[in-house]
């Protein structure tokens, strides 16, 4: 017997954002879509985000905070402070702040320790924003992050 649910999906998403200087708590990259599955069952897509690898291709290497949401609502202006309504704050699934970077030549990987983040969504996507979590950093490349998520989905079969 084969178990057809509780399969993992690995997503890889390149982030685009406005090249700018940010300080702790400011928005580096506004909310962007991460598609998990193209077809969603009628009752919605359920699962957990279990692992995160963020590749900093510019190699800045400062710690960042990832915010996982169920909606695409903007979290403010890139390079500025976070603005979010109380209603939209209810759409936050969870946070993950990276530790120190791991060097790879010009690139650096940032791998936040993460407890599983459960979700139950009506579409096949979640949304992610990136905040600066450290001192001032200058980012000159507008597509400098690549985000890899390891996700277990409960109720859809993965080929």
């Amino acid at each position, binding site marked *: 017997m084969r178990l057809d649910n*509780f399969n*993992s999906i690995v997503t890889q998403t390149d982030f685009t954002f406005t090249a700018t200087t940010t300080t702790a708590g400011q928005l580096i990259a506004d909310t962007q879509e991460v598609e998990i599955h193209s077809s969603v069952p009628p009752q919605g897509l359920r699962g957990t985000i279990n692992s995160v690898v963020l590749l900093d291709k510019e190699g800045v290497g400062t710690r960042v905070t990832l915010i996982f949401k169920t909606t695409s609502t903007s979290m403010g202006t890139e390079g500025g402070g976070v603005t979010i309504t109380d209603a939209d704050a209810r759409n936050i699934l969870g946070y993950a702040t990276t530790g*120190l970077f*791991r*060097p790879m030549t010009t690139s650096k990987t940032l791998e*936040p320790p*993460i407890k599983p983040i459960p979700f139950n969504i009506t579409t096949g996507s979640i949304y992610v924003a990136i905040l600066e979590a450290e001192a001032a950093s200058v980012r000159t490349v507008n597509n400098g992050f690549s985000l890899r998520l*390891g996700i277990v989905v409960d109720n859809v079969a993965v080929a």
Partner: protein
Amino acid sequence: MKIENFQTYVKDFAPSIPADTYNADEVLAATEEVSIVSVAPPQGLRGAITRVSILDNDTTDSEISVLFFDQNVSIGTEGAAVTLADADAERCFLSWNSADTNGEPLGGNSIYKTSKTAYIHEPKYFHSTTGSIWVAIRHGTAGVVRTEDPIFLRIGMVIENIALA
């Protein structure tokens, strides 16, 4: 009832490392294939590394980074500077540094007098289009004499979509 997928697999792997003096940001072990299954299903092999034991038999306390990839990408040759294109770096699904604050520092749980051990605990998911993953090691400390093949990895994983024997 027997579930034929979602099975545990443990792979012992000793990367080929020439005895030499290594400097910072040089390749300690070039990318090597770690075969998990000889024939992958058509849709590729999915799973998660759940734990890695890292044993360093040298007593140098030098910094290393162990990199896991889902494709065969080069980081250079042993003893030469690490070179890794951004597109290739995106294939890395797990990296660990010996001074890492997220994992355990090398030597933190030493059970031998001379060797150093460390562990990676966090599950990291991969989707390989073949039946293999790839491992490479970067050296991070200047002017360190290394013996031949001093590092041993025990990689524990769960394989999802294939029945193991």
